[in-house]
């Protein structure tokens, strides 16, 4: 099988962008993972947002509730102070003895640790009694408070909560005045140490780490679990969550929600106000605690997302591999096919389109393979036919060339022979005539008396003349023979053609040749081997011509054996074998001698006219040329020679049974041609 040329790669297009250079698996995996991740991310993001918003809302709501609860507790603290003060504001309290009043105040101080000082202002606003933890008690000091808010506001509102003030710039205090019941009331004024809200504030639990704190309406911190912050005079109005809660803020009433806390860090804050004191209670919880569930959900969603992406990556890689491996297989198979290796088949068992594709490839490959094989067989056949034709053609051509050569030579020879024959006839005839004339001359001279010397001389001259003339005649006859042969050469056939028994013809020729040879040379000895095919049968031939050819070949063979025998090989046994073979439409005759053989240099030219290897005068060089002419031109047969110098020479004559050319011989032969040249 001839390897087809590998398929040329298609011309390279403009190089695609880098991404497109990724292997299919990569693209597939990227696409798959990307898609899944995208879906997961969107899902996660939506989920997260919703969850987060939900959790945030819940957390903020919780914070608000806590803030309200915290505010209520702080309010309760104020209420408890108010109610404790209220104990001294009964209508009849004014009428109890100062001692009792003082006693009540002392009791009030004991019961309300936040109150550091309590005073009684009579209906005129004069201080009648003051009991303090630090200062000596003052009875009827008469200080006039009638125009101060603690008096006027208390009368107007029943209870008045004064602004927060800071003792020695540090401790938050507030004045609480409560008007007494009844007509024309007095006022009980208490100084409340707000440090003690600490108890309330620090008891408010806001988550695990969250806490509550209280500021005034201006953002001044008044209660915080870390008391030192309060005492440090901390203004929180700068804190975003406080800023928005302060009255007058643009976002008043809203919670800041997520912000940074007092001590940094993200917190979730909410607030509630205590209207009667204009305080704002804040609760804040670190975002981590407040958003714990949300964070958990975030972590859950994120981890689910991560798991999803991971799974997608694994699945993508797996699928990509599953897809790409058979595609690689397919690619390799296609490459093998492309390289001309059609014997292997692509084996893919994926049960999908790729397997179908592989089947198609295989089918294609086998088709191509079949086609190749058929084609090759056809090519071989055609080549053989062509070679055959070429051989025939060449043979025909050489025959033609030979024929043409011989034809032209024949014509030339005929012309020359004709021209030579006339003068030669003159020479021959006049030579014979002269011979007779010499005899006549002798007869004439016989009767005449001549002196004996003269007579002797004349006799001698006449004898010489006669001898010369005989030589002329002899050689003239020889020349005539040559001319005759030359004339024979130029004709295509002689005599009638008729069906001839080939074996008989050959046998006859062989006997003729052998006896001719024996007659010419008595000591001649050769072994004759006959191998006639009984089926050789009849062939339409010119028997005389074929006999000439056979005689020629056989006498050549005898000459060759003789020549070899002359070399003095002791074990040499000269043999000439003749064989006939039936070849269907033709008959084959082989003449084989074990003589000297023909060297290659001779073989090429041996059918040329006038070419001879014999010594000058022995052959005309026309025997084989004539034979060739007869066999090929006249009978349409062939003559081949097989030879090995020093071993054998075999002429193989093939004669068609029915292919005698109708062409008449150029010159009718008057006498059967005899091979003169090969006769020794």
């Amino acid at each position, binding site marked *: 099988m001839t390897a087809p040329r590998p398929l040329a790669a298609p011309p390279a297009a403009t190089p695609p962008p880098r991404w497109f250079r990724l292997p299919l698996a990569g693209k597939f995996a990227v696409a798959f993972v990307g898609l899944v991740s995208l879906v997961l991310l969107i899902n996660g993001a939506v989920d997260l947002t919703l969850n987060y918003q939900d959790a945030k809302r819940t957390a903020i709501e919780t914070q608000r509730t806590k803030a309200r609860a915290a505010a209520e507790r702080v309010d309760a603290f104020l209420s408890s102070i108010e109610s404790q003060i209220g104990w001294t504001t009964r209508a009849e309290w004014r009428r109890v003895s100062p*001692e009792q009043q*003082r*006693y009540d105040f*002392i*009791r009030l101080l*004991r019961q309300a*640790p*936040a109150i*550091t000082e309590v005073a009684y202002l009579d209906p005129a606003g004069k201080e009648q009694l003051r009991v*303090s*933890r*630090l*200062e*000596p*008690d003052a009875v009827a000091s008469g200080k006039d408070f009638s125009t101060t808010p603690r008096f006027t506001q208390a009368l107007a509102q029943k209870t008045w909560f004064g602004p927060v003030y800071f003792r*020695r*710039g*540090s*401790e938050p205090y507030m004045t609480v005045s409560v008007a007494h019941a009844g007509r024309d009331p007095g006022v009980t004024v208490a100084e409340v*140490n707000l*440090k*003690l809200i600490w108890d309330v504030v620090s008891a408010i639990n806001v988550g695990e780490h969250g806490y509550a704190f209280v500021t005034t309406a201006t953002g001044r911190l008044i209660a915080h679990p870390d*008391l*030192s912050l309060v*005492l*440090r*005079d901390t203004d929180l109005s700068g804190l975003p969550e406080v800023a928005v809660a302060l009255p007058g803020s643009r976002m008043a009433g809203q919670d800041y929600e997520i912000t940074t806390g007092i001590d940094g860090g993200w917190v979730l804050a909410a607030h509630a106000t205590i209207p009667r004191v204009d305080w704002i209670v804040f609760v804040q919880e670190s975002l981590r605690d407040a958003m714990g569930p949300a964070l958990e959900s975030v972590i859950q969603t994120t981890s689910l997302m991560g798991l999803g992406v991971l799974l997608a990556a694994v699945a993508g890689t797996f699928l990509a591999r599953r897809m790409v491996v058979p595609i690689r297989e397919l690619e390799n198979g296609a490459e093998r096919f492309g390289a001309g290796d059609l014997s292997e088949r692509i084996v893919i068992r994926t049960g999908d389109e790729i397997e179908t594709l592989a089947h198609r490839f295989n089918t294609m490959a086998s088709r191509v393979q079949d086609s190749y094989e058929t084609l090759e067989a056809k090519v071989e056949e055609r080549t053989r036919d062509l070679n055959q034709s070429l051989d025939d053609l060449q043979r025909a051509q050489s025959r033609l060339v030979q024929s043409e050569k011989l034809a032209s030579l024949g014509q030339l020879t005929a012309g020359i022979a004709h021209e030579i024959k006339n003068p030669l006839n003159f020479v021959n005839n006049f030579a014979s005539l002269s011979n007779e004339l010499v005899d006549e001359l002798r007869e004439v001279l016989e009767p005449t008396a001549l002196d004996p010397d003269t007579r002797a001389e004349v006799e001698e001259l006449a004898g010489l003349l006669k001898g010369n003339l005989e030589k002329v005649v002899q050689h003239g006859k020889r020349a005539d023979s040559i001319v005759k042969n030359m004339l024979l050469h130029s004709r295509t056939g002689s005599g009638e053609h008729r069906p001839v028994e080939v074996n008989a013809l050959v046998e006859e020729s062989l006997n003729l040749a052998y006896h001719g040879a024996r007659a010419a040379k008595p000591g001649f000895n050769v072994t004759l081997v006959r191998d006639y095919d009984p089926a050789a049968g009849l062939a339409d031939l010119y028997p005389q011509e074929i006999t000439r050819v056979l005689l020629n070949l056989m006498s050549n063979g005898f000459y060759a054996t003789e020549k070899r025998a002359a070399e003095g090989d002791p074990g040499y046994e000269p043999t000439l074998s003749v064989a006939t073979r039936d070849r269907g439409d033709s008959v084959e005759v082989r003449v084989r001698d074990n003589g000297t053989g023909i060297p290659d240099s001779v073989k090429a030219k041996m059918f040329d006219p006038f070419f001879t290897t014999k010594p000058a005068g022995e052959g005309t060089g026309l025997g084989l040329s004539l034979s060739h002419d007869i066999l090929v031109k006249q009978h349409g047969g062939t003559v081949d020679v097989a030879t090995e110098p020093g071993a054998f020479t075999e002429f193989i004559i093939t004669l068609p049974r029915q292919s005698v050319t109708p062409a008449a011989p150029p010159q009718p032969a008057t006498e059967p041609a005899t091979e003169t040249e090969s006769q020794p």
Partner: protein
Amino acid sequence: MRRRTVLAGLPVALAGWPRAALAQGQAHVAALWPFAEGDPEGRVLAESFHAGLRDHGHPDQRVDDRWTGADRERTRLLATELVAAQPHVIFAYLSAQLTAVAALTKQIPIVFVGASNPVRFGFVESLQRPGGNITGFTLYEAPLGGKWVAALREAVPSLRRVTLLSNPSTEIRGENLYAEPFRTTAAALGIEPAVVKIDTAADIEPVIADLARRGDGGLIVAPGTFSEANGDHIVALTTSLRVPAVFAIRRFAYRGGLMSYGPDPVETVRRAAAYVGRILRGENPATLPVQAPTKFDFIVNLKTARSMGVTISSALLAQADEIVE
């Protein structure tokens, strides 16, 4: 992260650790107590301090307690020793101790209990922002000088003269912290005030004996290192000489003094321990406000009253937070 970054960050990270290390109990906390070693009151307070540290995140904090007694020289000596040891925080109980250490260092944080007017004493810039290395808790306030007089007068209406027993530890620039309100109130009540400054225990007896001799006098024992140390002695003298006395330090009412009006130092010490803890955790004493007491207890010893023949009015009894019988 590159190794170079890690190595470069290492010193910073290590430098950041000591505070954390302080919380691990490796910190050195020293306390200066104005008691003799083994004094029960001192032990109670020291225990309260330790408990306070324990409760505020330093369960294993060892405290280097130093017992100075009332001796000024010894106080100074121990204070010098203490500062030389470079503790992380020094706790000073009462003014004399604070004065002793405050003079020696401006770096080591000092938490005090008992310096009545730290601003006037110059220990802190302001109560809300001490601004230096000192912060703490005050126990007494100047107006109490009047309160004590009023209480004494109420217990003994026949009182005509009152002596405020002062000692250098409660004085600022030669003036007793409580003298001004004491005098004002006494004047308002028609009582003759006297501020007697004494330096040694031996000086006590003549003062009390003088009051006893006059028969209409009362004694106010101002707080301070001297009183802490000599309280029992004073109690004994006043009881035996039948001089009605009011103490600033509550435990002397329990030990036989007629009355006392003042804060409970145990609770304050406990809160001070919280400050110490916060400083150990890295807070700056300059930003920790000085806190004042919110509650003062009035304690009456009825036994002593009876033995002295003093009749405590029901109004006064009503005021008493605690009564010793």
